[in-house]
C-alpha cells in the first residue's frame, strides 16, 4: 500500500473514467468532458479503467464516448510552440470502438522524444505496447484519446439525417484540438493523418483553428513523429478496448474470439453470424450501421431475423406517391394552432389540463 500523494484509488479512477463520457449533453457543454488529468498516476489509472470496460449504461443509448486528456507536461505548458499529431484506429472495423489519438509536445524538446515511433500498423504488438508505456511515462509527451463507441457510431450513421464516419472523424480531431487549446496549450502545428480528401479536410481545420499550421496527409503516421505517437495511442487503446470490452448483455455468454474485428477476417464474420438474435440483431459491440451487418440482417430468413413493422413506416405508406398533406393553418392569418403529431391524432389523444370534470 503506497501512501504517495499522487496515488489514486480504483474507485476514484472508475468514477473519473465515468465522468469522461458525455451522455446527456453535447461535449461542448460538459466541462468535465476532456478536462486534463492532474498527474501521471491519475492519467494511467483512469486510462486503465476506461480500457477495462468502464462505461456508464446511458452511453449505450445516447451521447458521446469518452475523451481522455492526459496530465499536461510542464515543458508543454510553458512552451510557446506545441506540435500535435492526430491519428485513428479501428475505422474500418465492424466491431468495437473507433479510437482517435493525439500526442503532443513542445517543439523545444523534440530531441528528447524517443526515435522508435513509426506507423503503428507496421509495428508488432509488443513494440507498440512498449512504445505506449514509454509514452505514458515520458515527462515531455502529453496525449489525448477519444473513443467513439460502436453504438455511438451506429446511432449517428442510422439517423434520419445520417452523420457519417468521415464527419465523425473530422469532428473528433477538432474536438481533441479544441480541448488542447482549452487546456491552455499553444498548439502551433498539427500533423493529421487524412480522412477523405486531404485538401478539404485541411481547409476545414484551418477554418476552425486560425493560427495553427496543419499538415494533412495520408500515411502521415509514417512520416511525422507526433503522428506516429498518436497512432500508437490510438492503436494500443483500441486493442485494449477490444480485449477489455464489457458486453452489455451479460445474460448471454459471448465468446471473445472475434478476431481483428474487420469484416474481411473470417473469424470476425463467424463470430457475429453466430451471435445474431432474431429480434435484436446483435449486441452493441457491433456497428449496426456497417454494410456487412445490414446485409446479413436483410438477407436472413424470417427465423433468423424477424420482420418488424413500425408505425412510422405504415404512416409513410399511407401517403401515396410520397405526398404530404399540408395543413390549412399555415396559410391563414391569425392562427396559432399547430398540428399535432399524427400519432396523437390517429389515437385521438388530447391534452388534459384538468383532471376533474
Amino acid at each position, binding site marked *: 500500500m503506497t501512501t504517495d500523494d499522487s496515488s489514486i484509488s480504483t474507485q476514484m479512477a472508475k468514477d473519473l473514467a465515468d465522468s469522461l463520457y458525455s451522455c446527456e449533453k453535447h461535449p461542448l457543454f460538459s466541462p468535465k468532458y476532456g478536462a486534463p488529468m492532474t498527474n501521471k498516476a491519475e492519467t494511467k489509472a483512469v486510462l486503465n479503467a476506461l480500457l477495462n470496460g468502464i462505461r456508464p449504461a446511458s452511453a449505450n443509448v445516447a451521447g458521446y464516448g469518452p475523451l481522455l486528456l492526459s496530465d499536461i507536461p510542464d515543458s508543454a505548458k510553458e512552451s510557446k510552440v506545441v506540435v500535435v499529431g492526430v491519428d485513428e484506429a479501428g475505422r474500418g472495423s465492424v466491431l468495437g470502438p473507433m479510437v482517435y489519438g493525439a500526442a503532443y509536445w513542445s517543439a523545444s524538446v523534440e530531441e528528447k522524444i524517443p526515435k522508435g515511433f513509426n506507423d503503428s500498423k507496421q509495428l508488432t504488438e509488443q513494440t507498440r505496447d512498449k512504445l505506449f508505456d514509454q509514452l505514458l511515462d515520458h515527462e515531455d509527451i502529453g496525449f489525448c484519446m477519444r473513443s467513439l463507441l460502436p453504438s455511438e457510431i451506429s446511432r449517428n450513421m442510422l439517423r434520419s439525417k445520417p452523420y457519417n464516419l468521415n464527419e465523425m472523424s473530422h469532428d473528433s480531431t477538432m474536438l481533441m484540438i479544441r480541448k488542447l487549446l482549452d487546456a491552455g496549450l499553444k498548439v502551433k502545428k498539427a500533423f493529421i493523418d487524412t480522412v477523405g480528401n486531404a485538401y478539404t479536410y485541411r481547409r476545414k481545420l484551418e477554418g476552425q483553428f486560425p493560427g495553427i499550421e496543419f499538415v494533412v496527409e495520408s500515411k502521415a503516421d509514417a512520416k511525422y513523429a507526433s503522428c506516429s505517437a498518436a497512432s500508437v495511442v490510438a492503436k494500443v487503446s483500441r486493442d485494449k478496448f477490444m480485449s477489455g470490452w464489457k458486453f452489455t448483455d451479460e445474460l448471454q455468454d459471448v465468446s471473445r474470439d472475434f478476431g481483428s474485428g474487420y469484416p474481411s477476417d473470417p473469424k470476425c464474420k463467424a463470430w457475429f453470424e453466430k451471435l445474431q438474435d432474431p429480434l435484436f440483431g446483435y449486441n452493441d459491440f457491433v456497428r449496426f450501421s456497417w454494410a456487412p451487418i445490414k446485409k446479413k440482417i436483410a438477407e436472413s430468413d424470417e427465423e433468423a431475423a424477424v420482420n418488424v413493422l413500425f408505425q412510422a413506416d405504415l404512416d409513410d405508406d399511407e*401517403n*401515396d406517391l410520397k405526398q404530404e*398533406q*399540408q395543413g*390549412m*393553418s399555415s*396559410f*391563414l*392569418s391569425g392562427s396559432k*394552432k399547430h398540428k399535432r403529431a399524427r400519432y396523437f391524432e390517429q389515437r385521438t389523444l388530447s391534452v388534459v389540463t384538468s383532471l376533474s370534470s
Partner: protein
Amino acid sequence: MFEARLTNGVTMKQIIESIKDLVKDCNLDCSEEEISIQSMDSAHVSLVAVRLGAGAFDHYRCDRPNALGINTANMSKIFKMLNNDDTVTFKAEDEGDALTLLFEGQKNDTIADFELKLMDIDYEQLGIPDTPYKCSIKMPSREFERIVRDLQVLGDTCTISCGKEGVRFSVTGNIGTGNILTRANASAEKEKDQVIIDMEEPVELNFALRYLNFFTKATSLSDHVMISMSPEVPVVIEYPIQDYGYVKYYLAPKIEEE
C-alpha cells in the same frame, strides 16, 4: 334579437348538408349584413366559408352581432323535416341559448316549430389572405362532382392541372391511372354547360380526393362551380348561391416530400 325569414328555405338545408360532413360544430355568425359560417375541418386541412347576405331573406333583422353555436348533424336532422317549398324563419334572443326554427308550408297551413339548443363554440376567426389566383376555372358543378366521384375509384390523390387546353384531373393509384380532361368551351349554348378558363400561367396541384368529394356535397346549391388555384397555396372551390352568397371550400395542397 335576431330574426330572419327565408322563403326559399331549402337553401339553408342545402348549406347545412354541404358542410356537415366536414364540420361537426360551428358558429352561425349573424350580423346586420349577413349570416356567415367559417370553420376548419377537424384535421385542419380544409376550411369552409359560407355567406348568405341579408338580401337572400325577405325579412331580416339583427340588432347586434350574434354567434349561434350549432351542431351541424343536429341541425341537419331538423332540416330533414323541411319540405322543399317550405319557408324557414330563424329566431334567436341576443343572450339566448336556443335557436327557434319555423317551417311553414305553402300548400297547406301546417306550421312546424323547433327549438335547437345552442352551444358555446370557441372559434377564432381566421383571416383568409386575399391573394389573386393564377387560374380560375368555371365549370358545371355536376360535371365536377362526377369527375371527383369517378376518379376516387383509382386512388386517393388527384392532380389538378390547369393549362391552355383545359383542366386535367389525374389520379395514379395501385390499380392504374386515370385522366379526365375538361376543355374550355366558353361558347356553349346553355350557360350552365359553359367551361371558362381564365389563366395567367399554368398551375398544377395535388389534392386529397376525399376532401374534394366532401365539397361536392354543395353541388345542388349551384349550377356551376368556380375553382381558383395558385402554386403552393390552397385551392378555392366556390359554389355561388345566386347573387346572395356562397359556399367556399379551401383545401391545402399535398406537396411532394423533399
